[in-house]
């Protein structure tokens, strides 16, 4: 149960950072935390207590294997997360070049 609680705490920290921080980089970090929380949760789903890694063995009797699919899916999700984080940070850098600040209070040229 404890690891799931850890996921939830990580998720909440991420949401907190996105909602309250004024610095673009800190928002990006908050977004990363959010993503790690979801990925971690996904990886935990495949876990079984005292199970083996799902590699072909010569064992004669049926063995208890860990579910490998969530791990494969999380790998994909991590790569997608890498792409979005890179894009988010590169847009943040371009914003800094134009506005000379990371403060979202000063970056509001778009009206309501």
């Amino acid at each position, binding site marked *: 149960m404890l690891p799931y609680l850890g996921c939830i705490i990580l998720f909440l920290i991420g949401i907190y950072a996105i909602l309250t921080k004024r610095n*673009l980089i800190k928002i990006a970090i908050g*977004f990363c935390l959010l993503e790690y929380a979801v990925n971690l949760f996904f990886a935990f789903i495949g876990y079984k207590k005292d199970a083996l890694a799902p590699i072909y063995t010569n064992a004669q009797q049926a063995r208890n294997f860990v579910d490998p699919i969530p791990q494969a*899916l999380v790998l994909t999700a991590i790569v997608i997360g890498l792409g979005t984080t890179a*894009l988010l940070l590169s*847009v943040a850098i*371009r914003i800094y070049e*134009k506005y000379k600040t990371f403060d979202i209070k000063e970056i509001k040229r778009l009206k309501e």
Partner: protein
Amino acid sequence: MNYLPLFTALPLLGAFLIPLLSKIWERLSDIIGNIITTLLLILSIYSLFLLPIFGNIYVYEIGKWPIKPIPLGIVFTFDSLSLLMVLIINLLSFACAIYSITYLDNYTGRWKFWTLFLLMVAGLNGIAITGDLFNLFVFIEISAISSYALVAFGVEKEDLEASFKYQVIGEIAGLTILLAIALIYSKTSTLNMADIANTFINENKGTLFWFIISLLTFGFLIKSALFPFHFWLPDAHSQAPAPISAMLSGVFIKTLGVYALSRLIFNVFGLNRNNASHYFDILIILGILSIIIAGFIALKQENYKRLLAYSSVSQIGYIFVGLGIANFWGITGALSLIFAHALGKGLLFLTAGPVEREMGTLDINELAFLKKRMPFSGIVYTLGALSLAGIPPFLGFFPKLFLILGAIKEKMFWLAIVLGIFSLLTLAYLLKITNKVFTKREGEEVKESGLIAISFLFLVFLILILGIFYFNYLEPNLISKASEAIIRGIEYARLVLMR
């Protein structure tokens, strides 16, 4: 129909060829982009004739991993609803690709635009044809990431700001969807949509089931920008280059939001008015709030593209009212509106391009005083606006008619009256632009370039012809079949798995 993977493979091929080949000659990227979108359009029209032969559903097993007895591999399932979405996506991307050839003269980095554009089309087509839940997520992210980059394509201050906002909100929605997929997998141990539907039939619909539904609804409502999740849309859609605004408002929010949500809600989770009437009531209420609030905000907008963007939020409200009514008439109305709005709003956003280029501004009040006039764009704009507002001979009339009929069939007379009254609001805010920008009699006449005019005429032609032949061709052959595909609910699972 074993050419089904080409719908994503062709644009991906184009997207990765363009960076290599455009080093030789930059104009090559225009040619490749247009060839790919034309081929996609031909393929989707070909599917329109081929699909009925296959009994209106076709399952493609990737890598020949069999779907029976247990679905191990990834499948593409192509039914009438996918066909409708694929047809809309490729019609509009064809028009936008022709338009972009001359429009891109204002920008540098032509090949980057085409790469991102084709990636976005690949993602959108993938969403429409996939039958696998995680695959759906991957395609959503492919199209979403390329759209974030395309919104910032102008790299002006406002573009970057809009793109950052859009990215953070869009990714929160994406992660919510991923979390829901994780929970679904933990519950069912499968990712095939049909198999998930089969598993959930026998499950007790407990707290976890509704938690999954709410996570998915939250994620997809952000993606489709229904009120109160619409706040990112006006920024993103008004700052993007004109063809991208057209794609985003025309097909993007509908494929990512409306199509994906309705596929999951109706076909995978099997919700309908009998077992989940509260859920659909919430959709109707949010839809109505969206129609009214976004409609009034649109009315007081001073910027050409922001007005159109708020109008999109309002029209998305109509689509969700149709889904919330959830009978045959309501869903037919929603799907017809997806079609009519894609062509109509796409057209209106495309007219913003030449206006901005020739007149140098998009502020409606400044445009009103400029001594320049664009009669051709004006006529095109007005035809598109009349279609969106639901004036009879055009395509946009029929969706509103079906929505009102659907509301009456469900004995929701107040809803029918609200829908009828507020379509006048649509007419009011859309004709505000005609009134201020396009009715000038004096001033220097500015001509649009040839390719841009061709893309306008293509869309106007479709709006007129499909409107006139709505009951003869479009409704029986395409839209009512697609709404039957939604109405049949988890019957979908049996059709896919029993192949």
